[in-house]
Each structure stands twice: as C-alpha cells, then as structure tokens.
C-alpha cells in the first residue's frame, strides 16, 4: 500500500516533468487552432509549423554553427583544462597554490561584470559576427579545471612515475595514461561544457548579429521574441523543439554515465 503511494507520487512528478515536453512535441505537429487544447491527439497531423520555421530561419546553418562552436569549445576545454588540471594535481612547481587560488577566484566573479569588456575585446579583435568570437573566449573553464583536478588527484603518483620511467613525456602521460583513467570526469566536463555552450544565448545575441553566424538557440530566441513566428505558437514551439532535440538525444545516450559521474565527481570539488 505504501509502495503504491510512493509510485503514485513519483508518477505525479513524472507527469510534472515530462508531460510538458511530450505536449510540446505533439503540439508542433498540431494545427495552430488546436494547440491550446489539453488533449494529446490532434484531429490531424501537420508539418506546417516546421515548414514555416525552416522557411524563416536557416535551421541547418544554425545547427552547423552551434555544432562547430560547441564541439570546438568542448574539445579545447578538455585538452587545455586537463593540461592545467594535470599540472595542478600532479606536478610540483612554485606558485602552484597561487595559481589554484586564482582559478578559484575566477569562479567568484560574475560573468556579467566581464561581459561588456569582453565584448569590446571581441570587437577590437574583429571577432564579432564570426564563430571565433563565440569560441575563443570559452576555450578554458575554471569548473573544468576543478573537476578534472579532483579526478586526477585520485590517480596514484606511482602510476605516473612508472610512465615517466617507461619514457613518457608529461603530455603523453596526460593523454595516454591519465585520460583513459579519468573517463567519467572527462565525460562530465565534456558534457557540461557542450551543454553549456549549446544552450548559451546571451553571448551570441551580443556578439553575432549576422544571421549567417547565428547559433540555433539564438535564432530560436530571436524568432520567438522578434515575431518571426507572426504571433503563431506552433512555429515557436517547433523551433524550440528543434533546438531541444539534439541535446535531449545526446543526453539520453550518455544519461546513465552522466548523472552518475555528475553526482559523484561533479560538484564535490
């Protein structure tokens, strides 16, 4: 009996968290007039909303831009922050603690304070209206350093010494010995970075004003705010659905791994 109550509560939660998505998915195929209905079964299915979205915003181009940006940022964060994290976790050098404190300090500063100068910097570098402006400022990230450092600390020193004795340089140790042993942390940092980059809207809105270089979330946000949908709900939802789809698929694929490592290695640092 108690068990039943438990499942009932969980089920209510499930409806609360999942139903809006299901509704949204179905609404994108529902004729405009029927969208506000509660029912999940429209009288007929339509691709009209998607047709409009594809007609109004360059979905493929946006997808490509988003993908290039998110992948480049993620790859760079993994490579460079793991280098820094390795140096902080496994090498001894003067100033190490200072650098570590500095990285912790950067976490305390709200991004907003840097937003304007960073924008002017990007303007000065001539990176507005280019993907560079979206990628380069985010090629490193302090959270990544913290998570990776925490994970690298658990790797025995002897293992790294053994690799040195075997003839590895530090970079090779990092990529051939440390990386294979830190997959959960790398997946966590990778996914966090990817999702963060994929979902970022504020920065692209500021830096990119040419449709050609806009990322998908930016296009969708402007489409929704800027009236590209002509006040119609279906196309807005369809655009939003298109935006959510890749990340949801990626999430479902990595989900088990992700949540687990997120909870354990994630934010304990």
């Amino acid at each position: 009996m108690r068990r039943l109550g438990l499942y009932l509560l969980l089920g209510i939660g499930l409806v609360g968290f999942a139903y809006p998505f299901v509704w949204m998915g179905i609404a994108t195929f529902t004729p405009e007039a029927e969208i506000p209905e509660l029912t999940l079964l429209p009288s007929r299915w339509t691709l009209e909303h998607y047709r409009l979205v594809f007609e109004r915003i360059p979905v493929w181009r946006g997808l490509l831009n988003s993908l290039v940006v998110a992948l480049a940022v993620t790859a760079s964060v993994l490579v460079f922050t793991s280098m820094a994290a390795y140096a902080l976790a496994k090498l001894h050098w003067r100033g190490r603690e200072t650098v570590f404190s500095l990285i912790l300090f950067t976490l305390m500063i709200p991004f907003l304070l840097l937003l304007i100068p960073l924008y002017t910097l990007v303007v000065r570098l001539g990176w507005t209206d280019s993907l560079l402006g979206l990628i380069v400022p985010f090629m490193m990230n302090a959270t990544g350093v913290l998570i990776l450092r925490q994970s690298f600390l658990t790797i025995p020193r002897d293992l790294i010494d053994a690799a040195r004795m075997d003839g590895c340089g530090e970079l090779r140790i990092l990529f051939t010995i440390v990386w294979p042993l830190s997959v959960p942390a790398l997946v966590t940092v990778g996914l966090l970075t990817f999702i963060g980059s994929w979902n970022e809207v504020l920065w692209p809105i500021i830096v990119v004003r040419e449709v050609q270089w806009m990322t998908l979330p930016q296009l969708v946000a402007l489409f929704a705010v800027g009236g590209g949908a002509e006040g119609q709900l279906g196309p807005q939802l369809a655009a939003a659905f298109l935006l959510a789809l890749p990340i949801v698929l990626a999430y479902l694929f990595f989900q088990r791994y992700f949540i687990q490592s997120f909870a354990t290695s994630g934010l304990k640092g």
Partner: protein
Amino acid sequence: MRETARKTGVRLEHVWKIYDNGYVAVEDVTFEVAEGEFMVLLGPSGCGKTTLLRLVAGLETASRGTIRIGDQVVNDVPPRDRDIAMVFQNYALYPHMTVYENMAFGLKLRRVPKTEIDRRVRAAARVLELEHLLDRRPHQLSGGQRQRVAVGRAIVREPRVFLFDEPLSNLDARLRVEMRAELARLHRELGRTVLYVTHDQVEAMTLGQRIVVLNKGRVQQIGTPLEVYHQPANRFVAGFIGNPPMNFIEGRLEHRDGLRFVGKGGQVQLMLNAADWPKVRPGQAVTLGVRPEAVALATVEEAAVMRGQVETVEVLGAVAHLYVRIGEATVVAQVDASVRPALAQEVALRIDLDRIHLFDAETGQALPRARS
C-alpha cells in the same frame, strides 16, 4: 645484445634533498653500488630511503651532490634517459592496458622494433610464468601475479639498473617468501645492478649483498648483512636490525677491580674484559647492547649478572623468548623452549660477554672492540 661494456654502477656523492618547505629528506648521503651488486636501502618509514631511490630514478632532483650511473652524472637527466627500470610498491600497472601492453609500453615508446618487443616480452613472461596471462588486465590478476608483471615490465627493458621500492610489502607472508626467492634467482640470472628499498630487515638480510641502513635522511651504516648484524655501527642500527630487537641497558663504566659496567639502578653489574675495549674512559656513560640470543638463563653458581621476574613468555616452537623484568627495564632472553620457566618466577640471567656491544650514551656510536 649483452653489453658488458655498459657501466652500470651507481654512485651518490654528498647528495642532499631539501624540499621547498625546508624539510630535509636526504642529508649528505654518499655510497656506491658496484656493478651487478644487489644493494638494499633499509630503514624505518620516513627515513628517506624512498626519496633516495626516486633521486636515483630521476623522479626527484637532488638539491646538492652528484648522482652517477656508470660514468655519467645523471643529475639533470630525465628518468626516461637514465636507462633504469623501477618496480613500485603498489605495482603501478596501467589499469587500461593488458599485461602484454603493460610490459611492452616502455619499449614501444623507445621505438624498439615490434618483433624485438614481442621477443623480450615473451621471454620475460616465460621466466616469470606469466605466459597465460598476457591478455588479461591488471584487475583480473592476483596480487602476486601483478607483482610479477611489474617485475616483468622492468626486466623487458633490460636496464642498466633495477630499482625496487618495497615491492613485496603488499603481498601476504607466504607469497612474500616465494617472491623473495624469485627475486634472488632473477638477480643471479640477470646479474644486473639492483637498488632495493625496504623497511623489512628480513628482506634486507636475505636479498641484499650489502645494506645501506638509513635513519632520518642519513646513512647509518653500509655493510654486508652480517656486518650490520654483528657489528652495528651505532645504537640505531643495532636496535633496528634483529628480531626481537637488541636489549639495551643504560649505565656507566667503572674501574673497580677491572672494567665494570654498572646499570642504572644498580641491578645489573657486569665485569668486562678491559683488553676488549681499548677506547673507553672510566666513568663514561654508555649503553650496553646485547641480543636476546646472547642472554641465557643462569644457574645460581655461575656469575649471574642480573635477576628478575619473568613477565611474558613467547614460545616460537624450538625457542622461546623470555621477557624478564629487571628493575625498570625489561630484558629479553632467547632460551630453549624445553626449559622455559613459569610466569612470575624469579630467574637469573647471564650474558655472553663476547657478544655484547657498547655504545656511547651521548653519540650512540659503537665503541670499538679489539679483535682477538
């Protein structure tokens, strides 16, 4: 392939290691390992022996002094170029590689041809009886097997010098004995220079051709196992080596009808042969050291030197250890198990004068004994 011309000795001259925080881990250490010699670094934990090994390996840099391998000063040579191999305490096998890959990794990095790698790995595997495990991952192996893989990884490299960092400490007692024998055999067969760190004196005694005893970063004594056992250079070495440890009795020397040792509190009185101890001063404060096997039960008629009550008896089979309370001190005697006295019984002990050691109470240095 055998390059006998290769100089493989290791020499340390006045080596210091001082950490950034000012901690002195190694203090003015000088010693030499001859080519092909099996040298053991022995000492309690924290004595600097592992640091010393890592200095030789190149994993740490010496603050002062020079380290040579063969004729080459290697202070600034990174580990990979020192042509040495190391076996770690917890084996340090790469968890994501198979046994074969673990052994081959170092060779691959050195661009040894594939066929040569294969030959060497298989040869080592044969010697270590690992052939059927080559495709396994470390976590699928038992402790002993992992240990052998770690050794195999060192062997395939055919290095000038092998370094061992307490390689047996994670094994259970029976395996440890087995591996000890195996290491000794390997050394005989390969004839390479070995520097072996341990805190276990049994390992040191059984494996080492010579032993460097370390304490608090300083060399206490260098010698063969028998030398350090029988002629400890100071009180630390005497106390560290031997099980149960040597008995120490604080006291002073007096010249009263000959040379006499008087223990603190007066319960111990011992006539010494003055000719044996050429360099003592009358009134000198000394510590008398005697190993349990040189202490025996005395019959009353004999010159018993001390009396006391039996506190504990440990029977080890053929022999027994008697813990006898004498005043404030406890003296251990090793006796034949068949004659052991009862608890709390009063006994008299005698000491074999030929097997006593005297240490200066202040410096702890052994007082020299005239050789007869």
